[in-house]
């Protein structure tokens, strides 16, 4: 069953169009990935889903409802949360305060303590760093905090934008493991990555964007063996 459906989605920034008539479906409970080079329109697509980037034309259907014109806070309330590219933590706030802000919306506030324990369960390091300023964390810890913060809103759909960016290989493995276990609790995950190998190994279904248009889609097993993908995205880079 599809949880999110993108119908002819277009995003324009002034004269430049970032996403051109994209059609995609995200299955409930799946991990889905969007691949593509820099500027292919991946982040814009996630931005639309999170309600941060205005849609120029087309529709977004979430859980059977048209959410095309929803704003960020409405999407969060509806259960779609984005952990943005570059973490975007609040550097001047403590880890605890960052997590508390993750649970800002109504339904998330009720189960705050419970959810906090769950996040500390995934990321024990955050418990240790609880009262430290987020800006003083290491890159890996910041990524954990960003994912943790997104989880605090008790999402149905978790949108991850470049979770592996700038992390050491050892940490990447750790983060990937946690993403998988988050998915196991029933949370649908949509992941945008330049690290195609990681994304394809993690996900069940993938979309490949090139300069704003859909170039290829399919189950990740197939994509992993696709010649074009191997050359363009897996070729030289062994992640």
């Amino acid at each position, binding site marked *: 069953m599809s949880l999110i459906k993108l119908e002819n989605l277009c995003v324009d920034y002034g004269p430049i169009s970032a996403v051109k008539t994209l059609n995609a479906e995200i299955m409930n409970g799946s991990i889905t990935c969007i691949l593509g080079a820099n500027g292919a329109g991946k982040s814009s697509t996630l931005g639309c889903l999170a309600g*941060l980037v205005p849609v120029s034309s087309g529709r977004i259907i979430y859980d059977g409802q048209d959410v095309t014109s929803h704003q960020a*806070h409405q999407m969060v309330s509806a259960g779609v949360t984005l952990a*943005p590219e570059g973490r*975007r933590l*609040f550097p*001047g706030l403590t880890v605890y305060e960052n997590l508390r*802000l993750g649970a*800002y*919306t109504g339904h998330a506030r009720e189960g705050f303590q419970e959810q906090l324990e769950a996040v500390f369960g995934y990321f024990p390091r955050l418990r240790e760093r609880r009262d430290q300023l987020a800006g003083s964390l290491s890159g890996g810890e910041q990524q954990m905090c960003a994912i943790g913060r997104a989880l605090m809103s008790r999402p149905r759909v978790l949108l991850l934008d470049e979770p592996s960016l700038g992390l050491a290989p050892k940490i990447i493995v750790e983060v990937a493991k946690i993403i998988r276990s988050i998915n196991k609790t029933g949370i649908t995950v949509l992941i945008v990555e330049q690290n195609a190998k990681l994304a394809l190994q993690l996900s069940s279904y993938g979309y490949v964007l090139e300069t704003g248009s859909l170039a290829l889609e399919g189950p990740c097993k197939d994509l992993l063996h696709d010649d074009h993908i191997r050359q363009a995205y897996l070729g030289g880079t062994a992640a």
Partner: protein
Amino acid sequence: MLQLTIQIAVNGLTFGLIYILMALGFTLIFGIMRVVNFAHGEFYMVGAIGILLLFGTLGFNYYLSIVFAVLCVGLLGVIVERVLLRGFVGRELNSMIMALAVAITLQALAAILFGPQEQSVARPVTGVLQVAGVFIPRDRIVVGVIALAVLIAFYLFLRYARYGLAMRAVAQDPAAAALQGIRPGFIYSLAFGVGSLLAGLAGALMAPVYTISPFMGDVPMMMAFIVVILGGLGSIPGAVVGGLLLGFVESLFSTFFGSTIATMIAFGMVVLILLFKPSGLMGRAQ
């Protein structure tokens, strides 16, 4: 000499607390909305006029009048933000001029309604506390205590309250804040409301201590400006440090050299800070 030193310190502290009240609202509004609120002094004035009306003319209880006047100023702030400034978020220049236009209008309106002359209200608290040769007027003690209490409450609000946290988040990264489900528009209104409320409180507190006139906001506005630049635009701790610093500098230099020199020193500090550490004493580099 010791006595004089203590007197200067006490004077500096009492000015400093009011400067902090003014500067906090100013810096909060800038930090969250990037609006240089040139109308901040007018909110101070409206707070004082509120006291003139409620306490002076209608004869309500002073403390009740403060609460009511201050809430009205906060409401006025929310209306100004909603109706006039909302469209200009991110356009610093236009929002600055809009704030100036609001300042001109409010000042003119007050002059028409209440006359251009200086007016006074009776002092709710009189007398002087004399400790070891140092004179502290009792009304200033009341002002100081209320200001301090509000500052602590404001600190606790920012530190622990949900909306306080949301304000700090929006100030640091509006887009990331929106991703947490925070509605920036609501926070803008709240910040502007709270900011003008603090200015209104400063005005309401100083109304019986000083005189009341439509133009009384100009100097506190200037002081808030200086404090905020010293401490760092948008920095809450900066407003506290800057306020105390300016209070003591003013007290010291105007005692020994006169108020014109004190003003020049304050402007000189502003120029130096902006040239060598534009982010202010407590601000982060941007």
